[in-house]
């Protein structure tokens, strides 16, 4: 099935919308400027800011500036508006309630968290912004501005987040879960990130110079960009002309280092190769590569190595447009994808500004484009690499005019059925936990430890047997728990290196994030804390596990409050069912500090409940073993569904349990396990873990319904021969 792009929207330092972006690219107008909107003391670092204040964006969007919003959400809405308008969505026939929205972000609502953190802590004011902190809240704000999307989720793989949102959307289309999906990302500049990148000493004090010998780091940028993806058939039926075909995509993990890419560019090489192979496109057919090209010594050198490994002597024209936009971090995957679409449409090669010479990198394109003399670009590759070695690549193909005909086949066949694993069966081989109960065992079955406090911290395992002291010394607890549960689960499943590692986390490494934020807000902007910052990104967990296991396969992290784990599970099931992978390590991790717990209670979450921490690792496989815990039959995920939609999802999933008609139903909001596992964003993973360990003859239906998110997971006992 071909996937086409039918809408695109973009906001960055070089313009609001595609027209301004195109003009800036063609006229060589960089968006790197002295800092203007961010209230920071670091004026020595030029940045790529979107040239609108929050109030100006509110006014463009018709939003009351008093409403609690975040800059990430506002930029995202502006770009989303453009993408939906171009795709002529929604309409009466194609309402948003049939279209999923997948976003990528890391910073989430940090702009408001850093502004009001001391107010939350000390004055009990601006508490409405506690809820806007998490990545998922930003996604929901963007989605809700336009209506009621069918479902939403958020990827958080640092600077490849938006590219991975595209990949998830494409997989959902290919699996027939949906026939239209909106994918993209948004990320604003914050003091948190500016100081974090400064502490890693990778910010240039001058406008950045990707691939140049004089390069001295990146310039932080901000922006948002969205794509509307549809199956080709669906676009034809809607009578809409596509902008391009998404011909291939790749996701691989460098599994080398938390903030540096390997000298041989293994992750980038694998990601690009996978994208080309999927499309059946040989390297010499690629007409342009939009490089990740951040301007740091390490990235540009290793990306050059990776490109040369794949393309040999015939390296196609390459440029990094980060010299125009700055590094738009989590949004860069789709910001640069939209730039690629503009380049294909208008037949030009974006220039790599400020490049003079190089001794260790590829030589990028420097000529100013001439639209009077368009250059045919058929295949264009766009790279997005993230901290932790989360590397992704997208390959687009131009749709030649005249090759597209509209088919009108009357009414649309609604296809919003969710995942049914009719291709491959998926088995849960093993699952391990570290929680408020005895760690790494099932003592809770016989001797559950009741929760009595508002917050119960986890009972820790002895990590020395899993992690050498030199490595353990700077790992936060959440990371130690992740490594220990992963190692035990994998060993029980007799798997050394999983083919995919997918993690769900509501808040990521909140302990380190909080320490960094606290120091920033109380002591000012000179608190350089490289280790804390490095461990504040949500994808640290998944990538650290990959680094330890040398796992170069698919790697992703979902950060969307109460559906973080379900989203990770869904991604794994998609790939297992399609036969893309044979096994996967799926993880769910959340930690909680007393001070952050107090904040969340003020924000209305967790109040009156027994809060706890969660660490679960589970191994899924298409091959059952005698020890397998259960079969995962299917799942459904809906966002703000109507009662009728919930019933429909329930009925369709129940039908998969036939001939069994009596199910053991477990509701996460008052589950029989919550009295001893407690509440956290990823608690649904503990429900699944526990259900899998007690399942007997009846299938188990795990339901999560928090008023916004509705998810169902159906488990069945393994048939013992």
């Amino acid at each position, binding site marked *: 099935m071909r996937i086409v792009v039918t809408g695109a929207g973009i906001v960055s330092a070089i313009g609001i919308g595609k027209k301004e972006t195109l003009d800036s690219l063609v006229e060589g107008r960089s968006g790197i400027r002295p800092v203007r909107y961010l209230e920071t003391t670091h004026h020595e670092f030029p940045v790529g800011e979107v040239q609108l204040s929050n109030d100006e964006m509110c006014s463009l969007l018709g939003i009351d500036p008093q409403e609690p919003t975040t800059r990430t959400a506002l930029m995202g809405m502006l770009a989303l508006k453009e993408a939906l308008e171009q795709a002529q969505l929604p309409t009466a026939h194609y309402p948003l309630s049939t279209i999923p929205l997948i976003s990528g972000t890391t910073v989430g609502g940090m702009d408001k968290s850093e502004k009001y953190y001391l107010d939350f802590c000390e004055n009990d004011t601006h508490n409405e912004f506690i809820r806007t902190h998490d990545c998922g809240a930003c996604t929901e704000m963007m989605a809700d501005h336009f209506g009621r999307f069918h479902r939403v989720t958020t990827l958080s793989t640092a600077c490849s987040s938006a590219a991975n949102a595209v990949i998830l959307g494409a997989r959902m289309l290919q699996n027939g879960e949906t026939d239209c999906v909106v994918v993209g990302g948004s990320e604003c500049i914050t003091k948190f990130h500016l100081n974090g990148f400064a*502490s890693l*000493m990778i910010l240039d004090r001058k406008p950045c110079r990707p691939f140049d010998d004089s390069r*001295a780091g990146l310039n932080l940028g901000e922006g948002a960009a969205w794509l509307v993806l549809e199956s080709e058939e669906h676009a034809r039926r809607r009578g809409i002309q596509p902008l391009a075909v998404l011909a291939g995509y790749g996701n691989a993990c460098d599994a080398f280092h*938390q903030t540096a890419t390997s000298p041989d560019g293994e992750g980038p090489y694998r990601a690009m190769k996978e994208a080309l192979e999927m499309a059946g496109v040989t390297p010499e057919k690629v007409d342009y590569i939009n490089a990740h090209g951040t301007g740091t010594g390490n990235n540009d050198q290793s990306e050059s190595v990776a490109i040369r490994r794949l393309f040999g002597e015939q390296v196609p024209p390459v440029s990094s447009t980060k010299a125009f936009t700055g590094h738009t971090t989590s949004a860069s995957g789709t910001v640069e994808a939209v730039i690629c679409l503009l380049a294909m449409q208008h037949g030009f090669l974006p220039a790599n500004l400020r490049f003079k010479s190089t001794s260790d990198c590829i030589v990028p394109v420097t000529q100013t484009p001439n639209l009077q003399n368009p250059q045919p670009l058929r295949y264009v590759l766009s790279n997005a690499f993230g901290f932790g070695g989360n590397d992704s690549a997208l390959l687009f193909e131009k749709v030649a005019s005249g090759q597209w005909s509209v088919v009108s086949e009357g009414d649309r066949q609604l296809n919003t059925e969710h995942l049914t694993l009719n291709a491959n069966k998926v088995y849960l081989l093993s699952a391990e936990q570290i929680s408020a109960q005895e760690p790494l065992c099932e003592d809770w079955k016989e001797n559950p430890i009741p929760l009595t406090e508002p917050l119960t911290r986890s009972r820790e395992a002895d990590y020395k047997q899993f992690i050498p*002291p030199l490595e353990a*010394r700077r790992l936060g607890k959440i990371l130690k728990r992740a490594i220990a549960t992963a190692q035990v689960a994998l060993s029980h499943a007799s798997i050394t290196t999983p083919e995919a590692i997918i993690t769900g986390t509501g808040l990521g490494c909140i302990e380190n994030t909080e320490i960094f934020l606290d120091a920033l807000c109380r002591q000012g902007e000179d608190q*350089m804390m*490289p*280790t804390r910052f490095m461990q504040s990104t949500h994808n640290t967990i998944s990538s650290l596990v990959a680094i330890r296991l040398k796992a170069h396969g698919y790697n992703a992290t979902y950060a969307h409050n109460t559906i973080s784990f379900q989203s990770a599970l869904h991604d794994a099931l998609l790939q297992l069912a399609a036969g893309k992978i044979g096994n996967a390590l799926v993880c769910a991790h959340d930690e909680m500090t007393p001070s952050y717990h107090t904040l969340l209670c003020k924000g209305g979450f967790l109040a009156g409940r027994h809060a706890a921490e969660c660490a679960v690792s589970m191994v899924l496989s298409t091959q059952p073993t005698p020890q397998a815990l259960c079969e995962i039959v299917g799942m459904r995920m809906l966002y703000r569904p109507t009662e009728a939609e919930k019933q429909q999802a329930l009925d369709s999933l129940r039908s998969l349990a036939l001939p069994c008609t009596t199910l053991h139903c477990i509701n996460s909001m008052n589950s029989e396990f919550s009295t001893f596992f407690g509440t956290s964003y990823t608690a649904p993973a503990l429900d699944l873990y526990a259900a899998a360990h007690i399942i007997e003859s009846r299938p188990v239906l795990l339901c999560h319904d928090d008023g916004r998110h509705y998810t169902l997971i159906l488990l069945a006992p393994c048939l013992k021969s």
Partner: protein
Amino acid sequence: MEELILQLKKEIIEVLNLEDIKPEDIDENASLFGEGLGLDSIDALELIVLMEKNYGIRLKDPNEGKAIFKSIAVMADYISKNRTK
């Protein structure tokens, strides 16, 4: 200089969270990175922060650290010559 070396050892153990290591376990002439203590590039960044906070020495280019962080003795020598506090 002896005093500064001991001071540095204590500071490094604290900032890099080198549990189970005592100042006398560290050979001031041994390499800090790779063989020896086995530190890595993130530790180097933390050492740069340490030099700035405790000794008022600000490095602009992390690559400068390579020569300075060869061993504790070399680092102490550099600090004694360049410290502003």
